[in-house]
């Protein structure tokens, strides 16, 4: 008679697990992240970035320590939590990558093409300096409250443009960012998608980029996240340091105001 018990027990188990599947899966993913956080390889990028920041590089052989990220020349601590912002010297709203490229061109004497080369790393042969520098600068804002300003008219303009782009439906799939990120409780496969129109959702998302992607073995920045979202939406390629990239960053970063920044993180 024992043979009958097996299937019955299995059936009960199946019922219970399907009801709980969604919650337990995200719990398990959270646990997985917590375990990995301790040995987060993102630190390797932070180390390399810190080194690149201090090194005398480029045709003019100067370090980036004279680069003003918004809090004064060479001040890195807390800078990422206030970006993107308006920079009078560039007369433009810039995010971190754009600002780094700007400093590499103006101060170190690189050409724009050289500075922007290889924005996203690919293995040992194609390491990205920009990603490493971003990881380092972002790590210096860990624990700092997000405080992105809209005081300057150009900052407000960038935010409004970002908001419009966020809801702009286009491409072969008639997709907008808002299609996936405009409602609570949406997901792709088992990955929960943050609702970026709310403070809570934007905070959870924005404060955890850059992140080491275990599945790629690479550190990825928020710009990469936008770039890959564009690819997934079948949009034209997102150009680094374009007004579109900066505006979308501005929209999500500003919505995340008030949260404590907590990256580079680790993601699946």
């Amino acid at each position: 008679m024992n043979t009958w018990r097996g299937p019955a027990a299995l059936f009960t188990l199946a019922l219970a697990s399907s009801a709980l599947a969604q919650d337990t899966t995200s719990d398990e993913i959270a646990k997985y992240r917590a375990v990995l956080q301790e040995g987060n390889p993102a630190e390797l990028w932070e180390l390399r970035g810190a080194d690149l920041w201090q090194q005398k590089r480029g045709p003019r052989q100067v370090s980036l320590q004279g680069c003003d990220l918004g809090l004064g020349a060479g001040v890195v601590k807390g800078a990422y939590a206030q970006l993107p912002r308006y920079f009078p010297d560039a007369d433009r709203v810039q995010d971190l990558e754009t600002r780094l490229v700007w400093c590499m061109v103006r101060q170190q004497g690189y050409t724009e093409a050289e500075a922007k080369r290889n924005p996203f790393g690919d293995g040992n042969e194609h390491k990205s300096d920009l990603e490493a520098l971003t990881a380092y600068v972002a790590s210096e804002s860990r624990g700092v409250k997000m405080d992105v300003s809209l005081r300057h008219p150009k900052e407000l303009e960038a935010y409004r443009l970002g908001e419009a782009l966020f809801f702009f439906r286009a491409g072969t799939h008639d997709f907008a960012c808002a299609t996936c990120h405009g409602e609570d409780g949406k997901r792709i496969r088992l990955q929960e998608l943050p609702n970026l129109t709310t403070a809570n959702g934007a905070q959870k998302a924005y404060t955890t980029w850059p992140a080491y992607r275990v599945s790629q073995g690479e550190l990825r920045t928020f710009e990469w996240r936008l770039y890959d979202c564009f690819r997934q939406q079948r949009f034209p390629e997102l150009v680094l340091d374009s007004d579109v990239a900066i505006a979308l960053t501005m929209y999500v970063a500003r919505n995340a105001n008030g949260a404590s920044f907590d990256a580079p993180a680790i993601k699946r």
Partner: protein
Amino acid sequence: MPDPMKIRATLVGDSTEVKVLMSHEMESGQRKDAQGQPIPAWFIQVVTVTWNDKTVLSAQWGTAVSKNPFLSFKFKGGAKGDRIMVTWTDSRGDTRTDVASVA
């Protein structure tokens, strides 16, 4: 030259906990590139950790260890300021040594 390691060594009770993050491709030799050609194996083979010149860990690694490996272990003893030295050698003969002190 290979990228530096990140080493943390902390005193926990009467033992020292060592955590090491290494930067390495750890190519298994099982993968193929875009042209369908096998990517040659390239991985860390030997890891040695010394505490004030005494070997406290010696390991032989293979291709099953992940990319950018993280190693954590404890040994009995240790005091604040002691020298922890980690060395790895990979299958190409490249090697990297980094030093940290116990905190």
